[in-house]
């Protein structure tokens, strides 16, 4: 079983890296790019003995306590069998 955790900056938190990427793709000629926000993605392999609910609980807690800083970041967890 695998947990996928997506960590993104909260709306309104300045993302200078996203801005730099947006500028670069603009210079490269990509049209219609309104905004770019950079985030983080984690793949966590979970022990097969965990049921889906326990796996989700574990990954959610890890995301909340470690992987994301709730002051500046949001997170989303997906469980894949």
């Amino acid at each position, binding site marked *: 079983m695998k947990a996928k955790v997506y960590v993104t900056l909260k709306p309104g938190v*300045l*993302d*200078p890296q996203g801005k730099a990427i947006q500028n670069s793709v603009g210079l490269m000629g990509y049209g219609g790019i309104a905004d770019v926000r950079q985030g983080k993605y984690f793949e966590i392999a979970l022990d097969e003995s965990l049921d889906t609910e326990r796996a989700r609980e574990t990954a959610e807690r890890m995301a909340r306590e*470690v992987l994301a800083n709730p*002051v*500046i970041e949001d997170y989303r967890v997906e469980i894949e069998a």
Partner: protein
Amino acid sequence: MKFGVIVFPGSNCDHDAYHVISKHVGQPVSFIWHRETDLTDYDALIIPGGFSYGDYLRAGALASFSPVMSSVKEFAARGGLVLGICNGFQILCESGLLPGALIRNRDLHFVCEHVRVRVENADTPFTNELKRGQVLSLPVAHAEGNYVCDDETLNELQTEDRIIFRYCDADGRVTSAANPNGARDHIAGICNRERNVVGLMPHPERACEDLLGSSDGRGLFHSLAATLAAAA
């Protein structure tokens, strides 16, 4: 009066802090490895600059989960004095001892230069030998020094007089041009509500020798020593 300097894998300003305490403050000081948990011998702790755990995940994040930080939280809750410098400030924010967070600099670059900061509150254990409005020349060296917090937190910091240092120009004017990283409200350093935990991005410990371009940093350490001497 005993000082401790906490050392994480990747700390690199630990010896500077040790040097300042032993040479300029003239007090006993020890290094404390991040796996240690007994802090009963200490009166003040310095969490030094560097790149603890390689800045993996987020600057200061992994250090905030290390064994010594649980003890630092208890130490702070008992009223012990804690000073976090640069990466130490990031660690204090990540561990929840100070509010807010430090994100990538506005202009993305690592900034390494002497800046000026204005003393905004001289009524703390860390600044009582300084004067409100005094301008200090201190070096900064960081890529994630852009202080952010929500409106509510900023309002608290302002109304409770917890912004200790702001970036300014040579004349003490707080301007965007004098702000090296885009920090909200030009914040260079803050304290907790109880005023016994302070974090700042500039490096006072690297500004204690005229040979290094400035000795303005000494005031901060002398304040700490004066506070502890008065309490003894």
